[in-house]
C-alpha cells in the first residue's frame, strides 16, 4: 500500500540573525501516523513547528502540510490543521459551550454544524451537566481533553499537539492518549511533542532534534535497538546532550 505523505519537509532552515535555530531538516509524515517530535529545550522544536503551522516563514527550504506549501499557502495550511498547546488552548472566561461555538465560528463551521458538533463533543467527553461552566474552573486534564476535541472541530487532516499533557495526572494522561489513538485510527495524523519519554513509546515514529538538526528518526523499537538500550528515555539521554 502506498503511504500518503501528509507532511513533506525538505531542507527546512530558519535563521534569526546570526543564529540558526533550525538547520536544514528533512522528513516526511504519513497519513494516520502518530509522529513524535522530541528534543531538549532550545533544540529548535518550537521554531520548526511554527513553520509547519504557517505562522513563521522559513529562511530557506520547503515544507508542504496537508498538500499546501507553508510559505506560499500559509492560510490554506491553517485551515487544514488543528493545533493545541499547553500554553494556549481555550478561553478560561468563556464557558465550555461558548468556547466550542467560538472556535467553530473561527474554523468557518455553519450554525447547524456547530450545534451538532457541540452536542456530540460534550456527550463524548461527558460534559453535559457542566456545559455552561467556565473553562477556567475545569481541572487541567479536562481542559486538555476538551482543547484536543476543539482542535478537531473542523475535521483537520492533521493535528499539532505541543506538550499536550504537561503536568497532567497519570490517569488523565493515559485517557488523553487513548483519544489520540482513536483519532489516528480514524485517519487523522498526529504530530506531537512531549517531555514524557513513556509517551514517546506510544508514537509510531519518533524524531529527536538536537541543536537544530534531526539526529534520529525511526520507530521507538528501532531506535532502542540501534542505541542498544531498553527505553526511549535512555535513547534521549544518549542523543540529546545539552547544547545551551
Amino acid at each position, binding site marked *: 500500500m502506498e503511504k500518503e505523505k501528509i507532511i513533506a519537509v525538505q531542507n527546512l532552515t530558519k535563521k534569526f540573525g546570526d543564529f540558526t535555530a533550525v538547520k536544514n531538516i528533512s522528513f516526511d509524515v504519513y497519513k494516520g501516523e502518530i509522529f513524535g517530535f522530541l528534543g531538549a529545550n532550545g533544540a529548535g522544536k518550537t521554531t520548526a513547528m511554527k513553520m509547519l503551522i504557517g505562522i513563521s516563514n522559513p529562511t530557506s527550504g520547503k515544507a508542504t502540510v496537508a498538500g499546501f506549501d507553508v510559505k506560499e499557502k500559509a492560510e490554506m495550511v491553517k485551515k487544514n490543521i488543528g493545533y493545541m498547546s499547553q500554553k494556549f488552548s481555550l478561553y478560561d472566561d468563556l464557558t465550555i459551550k461558548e468556547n466550542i461555538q467560538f472556535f467553530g465560528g473561527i474554523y468557518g463551521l455553519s450554525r447547524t454544524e456547530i450545534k451538532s458538533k457541540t452536542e456530540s463533543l460534550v456527550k463524548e467527553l461527558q460534559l453535559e451537566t457542566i456545559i455552561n461552566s467556565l473553562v477556567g474552573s475545569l481541572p487541567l486534564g479536562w481542559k486538555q481533553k476538551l482543547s484536543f476535541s476543539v482542535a478537531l472541530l473542523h475535521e483537520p487532516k492533521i493535528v499539532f499537539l505541543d506538550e499536550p499533557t504537561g503536568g497532567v495526572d497519570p490517569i488523565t494522561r493515559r485517557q488523553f492518549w*487513548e483519544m489520540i489513538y482513536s483519532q489516528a485510527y480514524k485517519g487523522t495524523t498526529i504530530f506531537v511533542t512531549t517531555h514524557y519519554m513513556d509517551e514517546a*513509546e506510544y508514537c509510531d515514529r519518533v524524531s529527536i532534534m538536537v541543536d537544530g538538526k534531526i539526529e534520529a528518526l525511526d520507530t521507538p523499537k528501532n531506535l532502542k535497538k540501534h542505541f542498544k538500550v531498553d527505553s526511549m528515555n535512555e535513547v534521549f539521554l544518549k542523543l540529546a546532550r545539552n547544547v*545551551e
Partner: protein
Amino acid sequence: MSIIVQNISKSYKTKKAVENVSFEVKKGEIFGLIGPDGAGKTTLFRILTTLLKANEGNASVLGFDVIKDYKSIRSSVGYMPGKFSLYQDLTVEENLTFFATLFGTSIEENYDLIKEIYIQIEPFKKRRAGALSGGMKQKLALCCALIHAPKVLFLDEPTTGVDPISRKEFWEMLKRLQQKGITILVSTPYMDEASLCDRIALIQNGLLLKIDSPENITKNYDKVIYDVSTKNRHKLIHDLKNYPSQYSVYTFGEYIHYIDKQMKFNLEELLQYLKDKNHTEIEIKTAIVTIEDVFMDL
C-alpha cells in the same frame, strides 16, 4: 525536624485546596510532594513560605511558626515558585544581584554554593532573563533561591516542562545541595522523579494519600502487574479491557500494564485468549512496580 505540618487545611471560597494534611521533613532530607496539577502542592508551599495563611492547623519551619515568626522563616528559606518568577527584563546577573541585595548579601559572599550551577549560565550573564531557554531559566531561578544560603529550600515543580536531560542534571544538583546540609521540599508531577527523593508524600485533590520512602511504597504494593505487548497495541488495550477478570489495564511505556482481579491468575489462559483474538508477537511478563503504578491505584 526542619518542617512540621500539623492538620493543615485551606479552602478558596468553597473549594478545599488542602484538607487536614500532616507530615514532617527531617533535617537534610529531600522530601517530595508527588501529585498532579490541582492536587494542592502549591497551596502547601505558599503556606510554608508564609505567603498564605491556612484556615486550620499549625506549621513550622526550622522551629519557627509560619504565622508568628514569619520574618525569621523568610530570611532563612529559599523558594523557587512554579511559575517563572524572575524579572524578565533584567539580565541574568542583574536578577542575581537583586536577590542577593534583598537578603543583604552579595553574589561573592555565597558564591561557593551557587558556583556549580552558575558557571553553566555565566556565559549568558548579560542576557535578559526573558530570552533564556527553559533549562537556563530554571538554573537561574535556583541560583536566586540559593544566594542567601538558606537552610531549607522549597522547590515548586522545578522541572515541569523541562526536557529529560535538564531534569536529570537538575536532580544531580539537588543531591549535591543535600550533601551541603540543605533540607529540600520539592514537588513534581513526574512520577519517575519520585524515586530520587528520600521520602515522598503522594497527594491528590488536597489529601495526602501515602507517606513513605519510594522503595517501601513500591515494595508494599499488594498486586502483581504484568507487562503485555503484541503487534497491534490499540487492539490489545481494547481486548485486555474486555478480559473478564481484568482489574486494570493501562499503557506503560512500550508495554500495557495488566492487573488481574484473581489471586490465582492463570497466565496461560490470557495468552490463549490473546491468540484467539488473533494477536501476534505476544509477550507477557511480570512488571516492575513503579510509583506511577501505585499512584494510579490509589
